């Protein structure tokens, strides 16, 4: 069964024409999104500053209540 599924995908990928170019684009795109952008530019702001939810909550509460003081 598993071999059938693997063969199904394998044959499908091998018989692609436009698809090969598309997979290349998808690969480049995912590399840019998840490796370049996510790792270097889009770190989760709260997780990068605080280790636990309590600290995150305290920080956001502080932000929300002190913004216009």
């Amino acid at each position, binding site marked *: 069964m598993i071999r059938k599924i693997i063969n199904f995908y394998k*044959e499908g990928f091998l018989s692609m024409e436009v698809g090969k170019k598309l*997979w290349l684009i*998808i690969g480049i795109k995912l590399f840019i999104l998840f490796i370049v952008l996510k790792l270097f530019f*889009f770190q989760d702001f*709260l997780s990068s500053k605080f280790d636990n939810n309590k600290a995150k*909550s305290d920080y956001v509460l502080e932000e*929300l209540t002190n913004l216009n003081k």
Partner: protein
Amino acid sequence: MEHIDFSLIDWSRAQFALTALYHWIFVPLTLGLSFIIAIMESLYVKTGNPEWKRITKFWMTLFGINFAIGVATGIILEFEFGTNWSNYSWFVGDIFGAPLAIEGIMAFFLESTFIAIMFFGWNKVSKKFHLLSSWLVAIGSNLSALWILVANGWMQNPLGMHFNPDTARNEMGNFWEVLLSPVAVNKFLHTITSGYVLASIFVIGISAWYVLKKRHVNLAKRSMVVAATFGLIASLYLVFTGDGSAKQVAKHQPMKLAAMEGLYYGSDNAPLVAIGVLENTKKPYEEDFLMDLPIPGGLSFLAFGNMNAFVPGIHDLVHGNKEHGIISYNEKIEMGKKAIDALAAYKTLKKENKTDEAAAQLKIFEANFKYFGYGYYFGHNPHELIPPVKLSFYAFHIMVGLGTYFILFFALILYFNLKNKIENKGLILRLAVWTIPLAYIAQEAGWIVAEVGRQPWVIQDLMPTIAAVSKIDSSNVIITFFLFLAVFTALLIAEIKILLAQIKKGPGNLIESSTKN
């Protein structure tokens, strides 16, 4: 509020707008074309005519190109939530978590499994199972949109939640209330239907080009009949969903409605501006019409189903209108400030273990929470709470004008196809080709109305952009803005180039394989 970096807010907003608008170039075609393909394949299975299989496979290839290039472009929006809008991300809590998790699971299982069968399964699975897969891809991609739009609907009209003052997060109180919120339901129906309209125009436009070039005429004419029928039904239904959305906007976001219509002073029997040009004036929020074509009572009817109903204008909403029970923005700002101060006091008193005083502050907070976000405008001019009127007005009128044109367009295309006269109608065929970009303009205009019209709110009445943004360096946002611009533009160019190459190539290479099954 000297410490608020408005350049950071503006760049973060611009970046979100850029990503959302680019993402939305790819999505509606996927939503609509998946159904058109499923209908075409149903015709193949029903009739056994291999020409329908050839047609299905051709459009499936174009669907695959759009799907592959568009896939994961939406994930960037989630990156931005965590980095640029961390206060917001924390504040929304599990309200977003649940729908987005369901969306992820649904997208993964339905789309990744059945898309593979849809593309690789010809001649390998039975005709009926293949057809079922195509329908499941269509249903799955549309259901994915449901969960995203439920989350967006909640931002436009937050309900079904309880704010936890200890964690600063909203907690899901009633999942069904969030899911079945009339705002979310209308938004979902209106959005997916608009996708059906765009996909129908896409199919008709490309088919029209083939007819003009006298290539693949049979494929083109059959495709046009399916797309025009589907598009006509969808565009008529779009009128009802649009009407439903307008009524929800009137109920929950009256300022957005006033901005959409350039209505500064409310009135009974309020007119709907069919066509209008707002004048350029240096006075803020006082633009009048240079010329307009009003339909008396039209806006009252659109908003409340009653030609004589009172529709509040921008001035009524900002300054209040006692006669109609509308409280002013200054009063809302006062209540919002009370909520913020009570939350701050609650936090301090709880730390000091003064539970009774903390409970009293919590009561004040809860009584004023409805206007929590207004509190951030304490000491500000309430005019800052007015969305960009011109942009909202023109985007709304472009969307509605084009939507009306699309109904006539589909009717015309269907009529000439059924009369078998379409081949001789060069002007209409050229018009069909040029209607493709108009469909995309209408889509983007729709999102501008939905999102610009509700500014400055990230979550209606609860959280404005100034409170939602993270304290990060604006130069980071500027760099990534241009990075996204470059990546998305490259993707768009790649999509257009690959699509055009495939369209020029046509379905010729598919004939041989289509006769096998």
